[in-house]
Structure formats: structure tokens, C-alpha cells
């Protein structure tokens, strides 16, 4: 008897669950993800006051008492909260996507993401546009070669924060003769090599090593390069795939050569002279991280003010001196040439055209190809 009762309860429970699921199915418009067809919001410039919250990558500004954040606060009276919670484009996006989906920005007025992610967020309707006329310093000082990128030719939803180069970082003492991406596949360094979890850094470099131009590469080219990486990972040649944390591996010497970012290497080298960024024989990957204003961002006026503020060459000189990436602002080199000539002549911070000659702009992917390639790469990363 008791058994029967329990069974009935179970059946009722199961029916209730199915019924609610069916209801949810009929709900229709509660799609998870997907773009919105609404018109894109445009930021209107208003009075600059109140509070602003900025999300950026770690070590991308001096946030101390004498630093750029404090300076902005003092100059404008805007109460600025600066958080360093972007470690990986995908992870940051994954964390905030539910908020974006609701038309919120998670309290952020500005977020900093890499080119391709900015494009993805824009396509999904998560970003606001702005008028360059409201950003006079950006208009005047943005470097020429960054003005018309493919993904945002009019710069109406992105303003570059810093640019950088992806190449190889080596321990000079432990791997003196690594000068190309192909050297990373040399059995001599088995188990001592890492690559980045960023698909658009790692795979294009490997394509270049095989003589394929990443811009205009076909899906098959991508998958072939991913296959090559997978074999190297399965054989133990590649120890692991990392984000910024390759810094620790290199410092400890567990890894002797890694695919890594130029600015990191400058900072690491200051602590350990044996660490060095090298321009691969095949060339590097060029990318930018961009300031964007998400839909629903509080106080977009102050956000615009901040974007413009960091394009004052004097302010940018402080940032460039602190972060050591490639600055997107003209006139900074001249200022630093007086302050710190060695820095001004560093090819990693102010690369000349000759230095980056064989480099490629970080490629973007589209639609179903993108998903297939990303999934294939994730399979490799998680083994």
C-alpha cells in the first residue's frame, strides 16, 4: 500500500516536471543567447559627474594613489571604481552574458575586450555606439593604422585601450635557440612548451609557421593547424595551454618557451633578465584590446569622458610607461623620449613598421565556421 502511494507521488512529480518544461517550451521568447533586432543605442553626451565602474585586465593601468585612475578622479570629480576582473575574453563574456542578455551591464560603464570579442558583443546587440565627435582627443590622437579596422571601420563602438603582439617568450638560459614557432615543436623541448588558450593567438601563429596566411585562411586551414597542435599536445610536446599564468611557469623554469604577449614579457624581464620576448621568424599576431560601453551601462557620459581622458598623450605616456604594451596614441613616444629614452626605443612598446613587417592582424571568424573551429580547439585544450 505504502509502495503504491510512493509510486503515485513519483508519477505526479514526473508529470508536474514535464508540464512545467512544456510550458517553458511554449514560452517561446525566452531564448538564451541570440542577437537582438532592436535599434542600437547611441550614447548621448551629458554632464560629467557621479560614479563610473571600469572592468579591465590585470596590470593594465597604475591604480595607485599617484596613478591614472586617481588622476582622472581628480580632474573630473567622477567617483571611479576600477576592477581588474578580465582574465580571458571568453570567461569574462561567459560570466556577464546573463546580465547582457537582460540589457544590463553588470554595473560596468566600460569593459575592455579584444577585437573579436568586441565584434561578437556588438553583433549580439550588447554594446552601445558613440559619436567620435564626443571624443575629441581620440579623434585627434588615435594612431593612423588603428583608425579603420575591419570589424569596426568607423570606430563607432570600440576605442583601443592598448595593442600588443603575440609571439614567443623564452628563457634565454634554458632555450637559447628558439626563434620560431616551429622550434616549439622541436623534441628537444618536449614537455617544456606552452601555448595560449586564446584560439586567435595560438592557431594563427601555427598556421603562419606552416606558411598559411591566417587572414583569408579557410576552415580546413584552421582545422589542420589545430590537428597539428593536438598531436603535439597528445605526445606531451606541449605541456599545457595557459592564459597569463605562463608567467609563473616561465619564472619557475617549468616552461622554457611559450607563446605569449609582448607587454607581459617586458614586465617579466624586469624581474628576471633571462626572460625575453622574441619576434618569431614567421612574424607575430597583432591585436588590440578595446574599451566598449555595454548596453545598460550606468553613467555612459562619464565613460566617454574616461575614454577621451586616456587619449591625452600626457596621460597615455604614464599608462604606456606602466603597462609596456603598444600604445594606440600618437605623440606618446616623443614625451617618453625625454622621460625615458630606453623605453621610447623599445621595439616591443613602439614597434616600427619594419619590425612588424611579417606580422598578421588577428583574424576574425564568422558563424558556423567559428563555432566548429572553437569547439575543435576546446577539445584540444581539455584533452
Amino acid at each position: 500500500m505504502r509502495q503504491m502511494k510512493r509510486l503515485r507521488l513519483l508519477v505526479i512529480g514526473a508529470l508536474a516536471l514535464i508540464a512545467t518544461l512544456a510550458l517553458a517550451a511554449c514560452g517561446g521568447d525566452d531564448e538564451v543567447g541570440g542577437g537582438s533586432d532592436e535599434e542600437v543605442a547611441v550614447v548621448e553626451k551629458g554632464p560629467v559627474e557621479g560614479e563610473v565602474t571600469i572592468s579591465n585586465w590585470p596590470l593594465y593601468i597604475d591604480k595607485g594613489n599617484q596613478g591614472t585612475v586617481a588622476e582622472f578622479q581628480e580632474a573630473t570629480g567622477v567617483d571611479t571604481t576600477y576592477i581588474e576582473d578580465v582574465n580571458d575574453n571568453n570567461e569574462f563574456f561567459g560570466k556577464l552574458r546573463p546580465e547582457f542578455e537582460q540589457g544590463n551591464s553588470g554595473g560596468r560603464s566600460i569593459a575592455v575586450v579584444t577585437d573579436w570579442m568586441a565584434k561578437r558583443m556588438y553583433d549580439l546587440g550588447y554594446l552601445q555606439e558613440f559619436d567620435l565627435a564626443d571624443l575629441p582627443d581620440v579623434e585627434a590622437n588615435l594612431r593612423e593604422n588603428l583608425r579603420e579596422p575591419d570589424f569596426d571601420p568607423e570606430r563607432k563602438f570600440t576605442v583601443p585601450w592598448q595593442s600588443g603582439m603575440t609571439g614567443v617568450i623564452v628563457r634565454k638560459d634554458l632555450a637559447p635557440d628558439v626563434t620560431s614557432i616551429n622550434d616549439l615543436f622541436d623534441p628537444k623541448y618536449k614537455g617544456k612548451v606552452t601555448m595560449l588558450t586564446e584560439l586567435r593567438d595560438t592557431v594563427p601563429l601555427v598556421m603562419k609557421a606552416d606558411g598559411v596566411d591566417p587572414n583569408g585562411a579557410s576552415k580546413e586551414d584552421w582545422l589542420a593547424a589545430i590537428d597539428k597542435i593536438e598531436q603535439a599536445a597528445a605526445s606531451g610536446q606541449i605541456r599545457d595551454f595557459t592564459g597569463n599564468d605562463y608567467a609563473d611557469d616561465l619564472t619557475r623554469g617549468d616552461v622554457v618557451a611559450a607563446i605569449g604577449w609582448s607587454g607581459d614579457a617586458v614586465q617579466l624581464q624586469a624581474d628576471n633578465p633571462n626572460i625575453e620576448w622574441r619576434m618569431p621568424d614567421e612574424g607575430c599576431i597583432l591585436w588590440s584590446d578595446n574599451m566598449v560601453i555595454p548596453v545598460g551601462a550606468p553613467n555612459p557620459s562619464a565613460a566617454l569622458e574616461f575614454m577621451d581622458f586616456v587619449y591625452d598623450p600626457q596621460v597615455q605616456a604614464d599608462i604606456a610607461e606602466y603597462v609596456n604594451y603598444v600604445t594606440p596614441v600618437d605623440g606618446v613616444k616623443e614625451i617618453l623620449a625625454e622621460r625615458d629614452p630606453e623605453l621610447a626605443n623599445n621595439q616591443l612598446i613602439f614597434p616600427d613598421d619594419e619590425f612588424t613587417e611579417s606580422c598578421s592582424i588577428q583574424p576574425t571568424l564568422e558563424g558556423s565556421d567559428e563555432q566548429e573551429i572553437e569547439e575543435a580547439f576546446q577539445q584540444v585544450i581539455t584533452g
Partner: protein
Amino acid sequence: MSTARRRLVPYFLLGPGLIWLLVFFAVPMYYMGELALRSGSLDEGFGFTWEFANFPDALSDNSTQFARSFLYAGVATALSLVIAYPLAYAIAFRAGRWRNLLLFLVIAPFFTTYLIRTLAWQTILSDGSPVVDALSFIGAVPDGGRVLDTPGSVIAGLTYNFLPFMILPIYASLERMDRSLIEAATDLYASARTAFLKVTLPLSAPGVVAGTLLTFIPASGDYVNALFLGSRNQAMIGNVIQNNYLVTNNYPDAAALSFVLMAVILALVVIYIRFAGSEALMGDEGGQTR
């Protein structure tokens, strides 16, 4: 009136726990179940399509990581048991006035967060560290071999992190044991070994069962140890789920995978409890209903 109220008392007592379960278990489970039945892509949106294929796919696409997770968790549980039992026994029966101090030492690692402790092991086990040098000197690690980023380091991390969860229940069951039973056994000419096997061990079985469950279940879903102490060749199922949620943003697959993991663990636990006997888990009270 008063009998009616008395009848309600158990429900009041259960109330907080039930509400907690409802809000933090049943509701998330519902949303996860709903998510697991969706299909589509991030750009086009994930629509609700009764995509039951997500469940078998989750299992078949990630069978390596599933097998690896249960292998690592199983070995870590076995190692924990081997380390924890003698330790718990010593604390319960032989520690005398040091007992409280020893118990404190077992719990002491919890004063530092789990993440920091795991990261510390990264440094301790790094390729050129004294520990690894010593291990390769005695031949435990081949020349030029490494400890970090191998199955060994991940299992060691799991064992280390979950060991207290094994020690404490075993200690608790040994500590409340009636010692006169051992005396009675020896009075009846049982050797120390027989007394242990026939009296102490069965009486501590509830602690052993609780300890193995408390170790095995979280260890099979853990991703921190594999993340920091392993590499992609040691990725466990937790890493795949984390990756699906936060990196590829493939929510349906991640949700389906979580369900499958839960189902597999549940099945393993049911088999284990059947095998270990429910009396062992419930103590004497459980046995009475038989």
C-alpha cells in the same frame, strides 16, 4: 489544538532545511534541466527543443574524462583511507592528552583557502624543486621526468585536499566506540588482531563509509586540482563542464554533462551502499529495520 500543533512541530523543524533545499537545489536543478534540453548556438540563441540527445552525447563525447575522473577520485579515496585510518585510530586510542592538538592539526589546513594551498603545491612540485630532485635521486621519478602536470600530482592534490574529510568521520566513529567491547573480546581469548578485525573495524564501518563518500563525491567533480596541478592530459570532467560554461558558452552541453555526472555518481553511490550494507552507513539504528 495542542495535538494539531504537536503534529506540526516536525514540519517546523524541517522547514528551514526544506526551504534551503527548494531554493538552492530544486530550483537550480529545474533551470539546469531545462537548459540541458535546449539546442542551438550562442549567436542564434539556444531554443528549447527537447534535445534529449544532449545526455547520451555528453557521456560519449567525454568518456575519457569521465573514466579519468572516477579513476583519480577512486585512487585518491583509497589513498586517503590508507592514510586516514591509522591516523584516526592513533588519535582516538593512543593520543592521550595530545588528542585535541592532533585534531586541531588535522583541521588546521582549512584556515588557509583551498586555492592557495593547491597553488602552493604547484611550487612545491615544480620541475626544479628540492622535492622533485629528492624524488628523482631515490629513483621515484625518472631522470629528466617531472611530477607536476602528471596524473600523480593531480591524485596527490586530491588526496591532500580531501584527507580531513576522511579522517574526521572515522575518528568520530572510533571515538564513540565502547572500549569495553575490545576488553571483552580479549577476555574471550581473541588476539589483538582478531579483536581489531571482529570488533573495532566493523564498529568503525559507518565512519569509513561516510569518509569514502565525503571524499569520493567531491573529488570526482573537482576541477581545481586538475587545473593547477595537471595539464590538458589530466583534465577531469569538472574542467570540461567549467570550460563549456565559461569558455565555449555551450550551456546545454554543460548542463547535460552536469546531470550525467550527478546520475553516474548517484548510481555508483547506490551500488556502493548496497555493497557496503546500509547498517554500516546508518549504524545500529539502520540495522533494526531489517
